[in-house]
């Protein structure tokens, strides 16, 4: 009896320790990070609209990418702009125009609605064209979702913070350090030179190779307007063929984005807005050369993505908590941007997952919904589950409390469809905005793979 109990006792203790270690493995397994250097950086939201064609304001994004360490030497980032623009279908009046929804893709021509000429083409400048009816657009064509990537390489020197406007990029020659060599001795010590050139520009001195941005090129985003994502993977600049850095200094990249906007086209007398967030980082763990061309975000080669993202939000359409005493209370709206951790850039197969939302209000009441995330997801919270924001589970009028907690879980089966990363943007009165990083739970998603062309 005693032995039996002892066995049970030991078994329970073992079970406890096992559970403990499992829990520990879960709790200490580092996930993505927004405040530490990493090997993979993801900027979930890059917005450019320098003519306010789609966005309500003239908008551009400054992307900052830095090498976190003085002694790490030259680092290379292999980056992918993911263009998530949608475009009007071929039947639209302006086929191929960038759009956010079908209302921005009217069909060509106009027809009479109502009246004796109903259904007939009409001239909107002729007030008699539609007796007792109206001459309007016959409807909308489709706004077709798109996905394409453009990749480029950036060399970041050992102390260098690098920044560029997404609308312009940085052409060769526009980088801060363009010369690949420096003169040692001679008549112009310290001067720039090219160590590969057959012409010695250092006089009696010698041209010594030094770290530089030479060889880098950052294109402007593929379209203006543009909405999409930027992903950068740290590469080993000495590797041939190019390959992800799996050395001891593989986690050296830090990044952030500033989205700046003006309410009119030349920032003249209107409003200015700036929103800033840190890029989400995924750190490298241990070298694994068994799958060249792929980086595995699995908790082994690289850290895994979190299984749960946590968003604290003021419910949509809630009164601004700082404006309660005013006559006209502006309301708060939150936009959520989510991107999958995995992407197949080789086969141009974007990551996709299902985002499951658990929404808690201040009374512990829980509601849920889910939505497909196909390569890039951006939506006002209260339009995620319905087209009527006042009836949404993210709406103040439904929840009845000012703030909520939303737990977002990525679910998928494909290698590019488990984990999610994201950023939130809250706006007050539809104008003043703030971007902020989502936090995360302790669990990890399944294996996410980024396949590199």
């Amino acid at each position, binding site marked *: 009896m005693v032995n039996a109990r002892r066995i049970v006792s030991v078994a329970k203790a073992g079970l406890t320790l096992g559970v403990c270690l499992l829990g520990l493995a879960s709790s200490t397994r580092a996930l993505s990070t927004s405040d530490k250097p990493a090997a993979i950086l993801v900027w979930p939201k890059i917005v450019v609209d320098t003519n306010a064609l789609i966005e309500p304001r003239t908008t551009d994004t400054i992307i900052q990418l830095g090498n976190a360490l003085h002694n790490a030497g030259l680092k290379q980032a292999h980056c992918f702009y993911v263009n998530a623009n949608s475009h009007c279908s071929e039947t639209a009046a302006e086929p191929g125009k960038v759009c956010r929804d079908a209302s921005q893709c009217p069909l060509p021509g106009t027809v009479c609605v109502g009246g004796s000429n109903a259904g007939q083409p009409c001239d909107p400048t002729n007030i008699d064209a539609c007796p007792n009816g109206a001459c309007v657009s016959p409807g909308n064509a489709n706004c077709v979702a798109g996905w394409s990537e453009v990749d480029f390489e950036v060399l970041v020197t050992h102390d260098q913070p690098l920044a560029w406007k997404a609308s312009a990029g940085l052409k060769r020659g526009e980088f801060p350090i363009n010369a690949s060599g420096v003169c040692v001795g001679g008549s112009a010590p310290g001067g720039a030179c090219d160590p590969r050139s057959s012409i010695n520009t250092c006089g009696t001195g010698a041209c010594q190779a030094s770290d530089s941005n030479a060889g880098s090129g950052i294109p402007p985003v593929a379209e203006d307007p543009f909405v999409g994502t930027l992903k950068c993977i740290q590469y080993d600049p000495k590797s041939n063929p190019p390959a992800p850095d799996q050395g001891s*200094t593989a986690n050296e990249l830090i990044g952030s984005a500033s989205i700046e906007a003006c309410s009119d086209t030349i920032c003249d007398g209107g409003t200015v807005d700036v929103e800033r967030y840190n890029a989400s980082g995924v750190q490298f763990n241990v070298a694994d050369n068994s799958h060249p061309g792929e980086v595995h975000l699995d908790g082994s080669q690289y850290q895994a993505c979190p299984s749960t993202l946590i968003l604290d939000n003021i419910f949509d359409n809630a009164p601004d908590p700082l404006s309660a005493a005013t006559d006209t209370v502006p309301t708060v709206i939150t936009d959520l941007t989510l991107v999958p951790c995995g992407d197949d850039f080789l086969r141009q197969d974007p990551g996709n997952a299902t985002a499951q939302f658990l929404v808690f209000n201040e009374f512990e009441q829980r509601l849920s919904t889910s939505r497909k995330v196909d390569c890039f997801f951006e939506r006002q919270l209260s339009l995620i589950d319905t087209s009527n924001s006042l009836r949404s589970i993210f709406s103040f009028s439904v929840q009845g409390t000012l703030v909520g907690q939303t737990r977002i879980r990525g679910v998928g089966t494909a290698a590019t469809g488990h984990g999610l990363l994201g950023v939130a943007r809250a706006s007050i009165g539809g104008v003043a905005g703030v971007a902020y990083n989502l936090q995360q739970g302790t669990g990890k998603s399944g294996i996410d793979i980024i396949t590199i062309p």
Partner: protein
Amino acid sequence: MRTTLRMHAGWLGLALSACTLIGGAALAATTTDRPGSILIFPKVVTTGTRDTVIQVTNTGNMPGDVRCFYLDGQTCLETDFDLSLTRQQPTVWDAQQGRRVNPTDPQAGLDPGLVPPLPANYAGALVCVEVDTSDKPSVRNQLKGEATIVDKSQGFSSNSVGKYNAVAVQGISSNGDDTLKLDGTEYSACPASLVVDFNGRGQDRVIQGIGNGGRCVGGTNAGGGCNSSAQCPPAGTCSPASGTSSVFTRVTVVPCNLDFSNVTKANVTLNLLRSDETEVTLSGAVPQFGCWASFVVEDAFGGTQLATAYGSAGLRSVTGGPVVGVAESFVADSLANTASAAVDLHTRGVCSLNAGNAYCNRDQDCPAGSGTCVFTQAAVIQLPAH
């Protein structure tokens, strides 16, 4: 039977102890990505036209009590209050208004407790600590928080707003006393150094690019924003000298050594090392401060302007223990329409024996003789007896 049960308890205790030790060894520095047992909001202001909205959320499935302390950045005095959060409960309050316990007031939601209002022109920090039902510190790592700083001076349609995540200190194994050791065994330790990416003080490139690099002098658009004289018809000129766009970055830090019981100041001195886009580095410092500091990055370098548009600066404390912080960027067009954005700071290590500014991510990064790479630095938060 009694012996067996004792053995049973012993095994469980051993197992749990092992769990705690391993956990202690494995957990690292503070985080802005995950919930924790202590939240530090480095910047809470009600100065001038600015105000701060605080959000605190219990992310766990157990109810939780919280002790919070406002820290006045000028006097280092504290004002404390208690919160009770039900499971998964988010809550919010306006720092200048506080929040009363009044189910009939206009603010919808479940009042978490009496939150005192802050006076006008307050600038400081907020620290919240998980406690059990007897107000002893406990470790559940359920708390997360955000602060939204709003400038209402330009009307509600053009508020300047910034939002950041609170710095979370994860609990490991609390002994329940009021001395919270942020040392990697009781709570995770504070970061050894911080990194801020910043815009050099000067004109803002985006606004310049959009078209408001200067102001019109003369013409029908006199005083208006412009980027070329063609925007100042018929005969005006666009003069950058008469008003330009601007951008600068302000960093706010608070020490991890906080003595709310005896109101003892940490007296922190910061060393900084910045680098511009051409790798030109410059050292700077923030003179000793008691318990809170807020400064424009260039001011820590004697006002020396950055030679390029963007820079990166490392911050490390040389006296008074580690700090945590947040950065705020301020952008204005040439007509002084202003916006702000807040962002959490990155963290990294420093070489243990280097008195200067040797930053690192691993031991190999430290030059010979400069020791090993240390990512965290211990600190103590002393709570007053409840």
